[in-house]
């Protein structure tokens, strides 16, 4: 069938349709293919000239083109907020935007709040800084190398320090004005023991892929399989336990950090490994809180005794290959600099003020783990002081911004017993 005859046919149909709504007319035209080289999609448009207000109906490849250009142009904050705008306009725009935006691991950029729960890039770190506000006991994580002159840096996460009888809590939220655990801006928390030697990081959502809610008599375990986000009880899931130990030299040497990443398997740093990458925040089903360990991974290394917590520990149903080993991070040992008479780490210019809080974390692995030397050398998290109440935080795969921030917060709270 030639193009000309299609057009003639459609004209006849149009004349016959009369006052039918344009949308309806468009969809009723049958699709015919011809042997012509390029057949325009007749069903895309109605037979009448396109009227205003039909952006919702533009072909998806055009919408993809437009939104892709927006995403590629606005790579840095605050302009990048427009990508979040596009994802909020309507369902089709959201679908297209989500298709285009890559994870931080893939593109090195933070876009949606969920980016903060996804691992950073493998090759080079995402660079942030933390500002401590002593008056409000708040810690603010910003995206950027150092505070900018005009204060337009993107605020990523905020932590509020709360002293309890038995220790300290840092509540972590997406926004600076809401730290309620029942709010949908609540991300997780860091809890310390009384001595400030042992910390636990809790996440408000289970590690991606676990999908099993912790044991609790109060929760309702409803799963709506049609929804993309699993509905989970409002709970805290352990994602990491951090311990600080004195150096053998006591106060004259740097302290030792040990982080068991309960939510990241050691395979993440092995050849071809991946780290859990959630794609959305879960929907909270009820307001009762319970605490449980992330259904997962047996930690290795000095777990110490967690008897200060009364947490029911839920283990993941054992996989066919047996329980999975957690990744453990330890701080890189500084070298003693004879001439300067101090302990030194190479922070590559990102840390400029000496402080016992400064550290670099690398993977703690054994030969049996088969982790390449290059991978073992990688500084996964670096934290250090650059000014009064300003600290830089550089993190990369397999840590997420949230995990990195929580680990850094622990460095603020360690007590003199440890220094």
């Amino acid at each position: 069938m030639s193009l000309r005859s299609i057009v003639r046919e459609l004209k006849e149909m149009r004349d016959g349709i009369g006052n039918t709504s344009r949308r309806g007319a468009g969809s009723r035209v049958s699709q015919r293919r011809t042997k012509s080289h390029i057949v325009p999609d007749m069903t895309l448009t109605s037979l009448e000239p396109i009227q205003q207000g039909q952006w919702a109906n533009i072909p998806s490849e055009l919408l993809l083109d437009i939104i892709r250009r927006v995403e590629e142009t606005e790579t840095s904050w605050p302009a990048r907020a427009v990508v979040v705008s596009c994802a909020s306009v309507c369902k089709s725009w959201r679908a297209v935007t989500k298709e285009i935006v890559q994870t931080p691991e893939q593109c090195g950029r933070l876009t949606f709040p969920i980016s903060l729960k996804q691992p950073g890039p493998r090759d080079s770190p995402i660079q942030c800084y933390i500002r401590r506000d002593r008056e409000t006991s708040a810690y603010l994580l910003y995206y950027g190398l150092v505070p900018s002159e005009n204060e337009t840096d993107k605020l990523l996460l905020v932590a509020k320090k709360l002293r309890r009888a038995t220790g300290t809590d840092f509540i972590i939220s997406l926004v600076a004005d809401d730290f309620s655990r029942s709010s949908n801006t609540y991300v997780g928390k860091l809890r310390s023991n009384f001595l400030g030697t042992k910390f636990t990081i809790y996440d408000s959502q289970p590690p991606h892929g676990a999908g099993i809610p912790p044991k609790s008599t109060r929760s309702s375990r409803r799963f709506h399989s049609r929804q993309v986000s699993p509905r989970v009880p409002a709970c805290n899931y352990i994602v990491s336990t951090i311990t600080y130990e004195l150096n053998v030299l006591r106060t004259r040497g740097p302290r030792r950090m040990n982080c068991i990443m309960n939510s990241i398997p050691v395979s993440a740093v092995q050849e071809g490994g991946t780290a859990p990458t959630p794609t959305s925040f879960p929907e909270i089903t009820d307001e009762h809180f319970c605490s449980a360990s992330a259904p997962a991974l047996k930690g290795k290394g000095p777990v110490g005794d967690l008897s200060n917590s009364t947490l029911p520990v839920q283990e993941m149903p054992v996989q066919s290959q047996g329980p999975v080993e957690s990744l453990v991070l330890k701080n890189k040992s500084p070298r003693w600099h004879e001439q300067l008479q101090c302990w030194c780490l190479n922070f590559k210019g990102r840390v400029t003020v000496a402080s016992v809080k400064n550290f670099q974390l690398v993977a703690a692995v054994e030969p049996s783990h088969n982790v390449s030397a290059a991978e073992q050398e990688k500084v996964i998290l670096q934290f250090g002081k650059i000014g009064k109440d300003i600290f830089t935080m550089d993190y990369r795969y397999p840590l997420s911004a949230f995990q990195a921030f929580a680990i850094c917060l622990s460095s603020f709270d360690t007590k003199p017993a440890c220094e």
Partner: protein
Amino acid sequence: MAEEKSQASSSKMLTLKASDGVLFEVELNIAKEMKTVQAYIDDCEDIETIPIPNVLGKHLAIVIEYIKKTNEEYDAEFEKQWNMDDLQLLLLAANYLNISGLQECLCKAIAKRIENKSPEYVRKVFNIENDHSPEEEAKLRKEYKWAFEGVDKD
């Protein structure tokens, strides 16, 4: 007719008929920039008038002008003249007629107009209805609050 045929093919004229009946006489090499029209010509060689059933005369005129004049400078100024409704219709025309250069220019222009804008603004200007459910809307509000924290409103 015979006189025209003996001239170089580049000066052969073609007539394009817009949806509202407006006629445009264009040179063949201009018309060929519209791949849809090119396909039409390939299919029926003797054709003199080609119907363009879903592009208004007003927009077809703009499209033809674009093809004749396009260059970097022209493109930069071109997109500034049109409001969102025209941009949309021009984009659909460029898509239908399959003119990749114009389509790219318009997509770029539309993307630029979305810069630094809120979803409400985008919906208003593009005349799109928000079809999210109330639950989804709550999730989006959280995202929005986080993304626009500290950013000036438009």
